[in-house]
């Protein structure tokens, strides 16, 4: 019985939150890895693209709410999400036309594109703060819990409660659908195949008649979609604040690099590795250990390896370890 109680506590505080966080990171890292694979630079503006997309979605959510439209138990933001994606895609395509295309044609070094993306990051960050402000926005509505801790205890007679929030389930379900669609697109459709060919060998792809501008355009649209979905899911699950999204850049990069930059499958794996380690290292294990260990061995302290503020340090340490021992990532990425 104690063992089961410990397992429930583990699921409640570690497994479930880390799974939804991992799904959000994976979607973010997929965007970074696609830009890296096709446009060949590390996009520092990705965190702010996520913030921008989420902001548009929030604005439409408020509009729908004022009209009285809702999705019942599901958050209204899901209804606004497609509009958010369209808005972000238009903005990102505009940035490509005005900013990135020039450097692509000039065949600028990747590091110059990174600096250019820093400029784009400033503009997007400023725009987001200008429109929606710097404060925290909560836009999740609908029912909060799928299973509440109280009901779970009543139903099972366990000492520990298990709570599953609606947003956590939505995150995981949406992420699975999006990833399945993305892989279907990359592996089965003509455009997807031309994208992979372009990523593998640009010259060869050009020789076989692939239109690079089209590949780049499709990539940006997909990236805008992934970034907006990741951002909205994160915002629903936690809350929306422009600066937090900027800070997400670090775990997202860590996920993409750990998985191997340019490798979509790696981005997903990396996202979950980073998320599980972050939550596991910053969780106070006293409760779980209290169930599992004989009482003489239970530690006096919280049994927390690091304070929650150090969660970014965790993703960083993983990043450094992988870079030192396996620079192309665990899932064999590319190095341009």
């Amino acid at each position, binding site marked *: 019985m104690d063992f089961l109680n410990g397992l429930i506590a583990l699921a409640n505080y570690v497994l479930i939150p880390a799974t939804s966080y991992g799904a959000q990171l994976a979607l973010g890292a997929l965007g970074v890895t696609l830009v890296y694979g096709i446009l060949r630079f590390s996009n520092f503006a990705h965190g702010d693209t996520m913030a921008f997309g989420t902001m548009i979605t929030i604005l439409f959510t408020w509009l729908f709410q004022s009209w009285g439209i809702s999705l019942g138990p599901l958050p209204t933001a899901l209804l606004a999400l497609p509009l958010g994606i369209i808005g972000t895609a238009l903005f990102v395509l505009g940035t490509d036309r005005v900013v990135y295309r020039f450097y692509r044609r000039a065949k600028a070094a990747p590091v110059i594109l990174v600096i250019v993306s820093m400029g784009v990051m400033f503009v997007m960050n400023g725009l987001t703060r200008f429109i929606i402000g710097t404060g925290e926005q909560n836009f999740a509505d609908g029912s909060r819990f799928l299973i509440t801790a109280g009901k779970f205890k009543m139903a099972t007679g366990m000492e520990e409660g298990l709570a599953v929030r609606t947003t956590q389930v939505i995150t995981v379900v949406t992420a699975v659908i999006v990833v399945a669609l993305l892989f279907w697109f990359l592996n089965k459709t003509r455009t997807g195949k031309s994208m992979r060919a372009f990523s593998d060998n640009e010259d060869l792809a050009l020789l076989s008649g692939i239109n690079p501008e089209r590949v780049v355009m499709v990539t940006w649209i997909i990236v805008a979609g992934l970034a907006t979905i990741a951002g909205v899911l994160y915002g629903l699950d936690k809350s929306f604040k422009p600066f937090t999204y900027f800070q997400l850049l670090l775990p997202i990069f*860590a996920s993409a690099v750990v998985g191997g930059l340019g490798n979509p499958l790696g981005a997903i794996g990396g996202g979950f590795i980073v998320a599980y380690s972050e939550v596991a290292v910053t969780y106070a294990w006293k409760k779980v250990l209290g169930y599992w260990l004989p009482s003489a061995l239970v530690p006096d302290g919280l049994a927390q390896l690091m304070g929650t*503020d150090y969660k970014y340090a965790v993703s960083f340490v993983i990043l450094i370890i992988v*870079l030192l021992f396996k*620079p192309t990532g665990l899932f064999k990425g590319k190095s341009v």
Partner: protein
Amino acid sequence: MSAPVKNSLLFLVLAMMFLASALMQSWGAALDMLVVGLASAIMALGVNMQWGYAGLFNVGVMGFSALGSLAMVLIATTARPQAWTAGGWMIPIALAIGAAVVLLAIGLWRWMPKGKVRALALIVLLIVGFIVYRAVFDPGVTAVEAINASAAGNIGGLGVAWFFQLLGASKDTALQLAVWVAWPVGGLIAAGAAWIVAKTALGLRSDYLAIATLGIAEIIVTVLKNEDWLDRGVKNVYGLPRPYPVPQQVDLQQHAGFISWAKSWGLDPTNAANRIVQLEYVVIFAVILIVILTLVELALKSPWGRMMRAIRDNEISAEAMGKDVKARHLQVFVIGSAVIGIAGAMVTSYTGLFSPTTYQPLRWTFLIWVMVIVGGSGNNWGSVLGGLLIYFLWIEVEPVGKWLLALITDPMPNTWALKGHLRESAEQMRLMTMGIVLLLVLRFSPRGLIPEK
């Protein structure tokens, strides 16, 4: 127009801008911009060495300047012996244990044959090491933080001011003298951190170095926010001393001789005291800037500088000529970070406040990058110009933006929510303007205002 004439004109225009701000806004605001602008120019010089000389992409400027300002807390505050006797002595022992465990782990990895035994030994060593480290570290921290938590609660200064007191200085003067030690020590701390970063991340591809430095800066600031025993964390350290002989404004305002002197010139003593303190800072910072600028210019023109640029332009051929690329990169990365650390300590002593929450990457990392690129990467004079100009814009965009938005929103009826929203958001114009300036310069004048020769 020849290059020297054009460059002098650029600096002249910059001086006119500062003068215009002084006359139209206030001398206080203009001098404030000048002081912090001079310190920013020094930071830009540090980044320029790394990027302009060597092509190293350091996105962790924030972390190195925060470490520099930590030196102000450790060196230029009074010592707190009771913290050390209460249990503070355990903290350095714990840190030494931690360092020893890491070194031992590296040694194991290097010298043991590859295989399961090595992996197991490594894991056991790290787990046991961590438990021992925490067992020594935690009680020490608890003891230190328990001492008068609202006013102290940290280990205090490391006794440099006490040393000056032994030499016969009064208590306040000793603290002021310690500031001169704190600045170079800030550079040393930043250099030490840079050495560790460089050892692990240099030699990786350029964008990996960027991501690694971005991460290390975030971690440094997190440590400064959370380790209260070291620097009081988010509780901040107030009233840091000014470098000798700059007085505190309050003392000057109450000084009878100064009041009568100010009155004889028809000045308000309060304002005059503030302006004089700022002017003294301008002189000190300008002298330090000139010294560092001279040194880096000499370095750039020396054979060492030519070698650095040769490495930057073609690593492979430089390596074929027998240059140790990795060692040179390490060297310039450490030196550049030290310069950034010194400037970080200088800013903290000007504001008199150590506050880790003020370290935001957009202000402390990316703004410095805008300075270097707009000024002209690879050119030290460009960094100085960029540092002063971009800091000026960073500050001035806010009032100009407010004025502009007031003008635009004026015809709107007061009932519109948009009107109030736009007027409140004026300060966010800063980021957008900086981004647009950076993008325009990169696109139309990629070599910057004063291009590299």
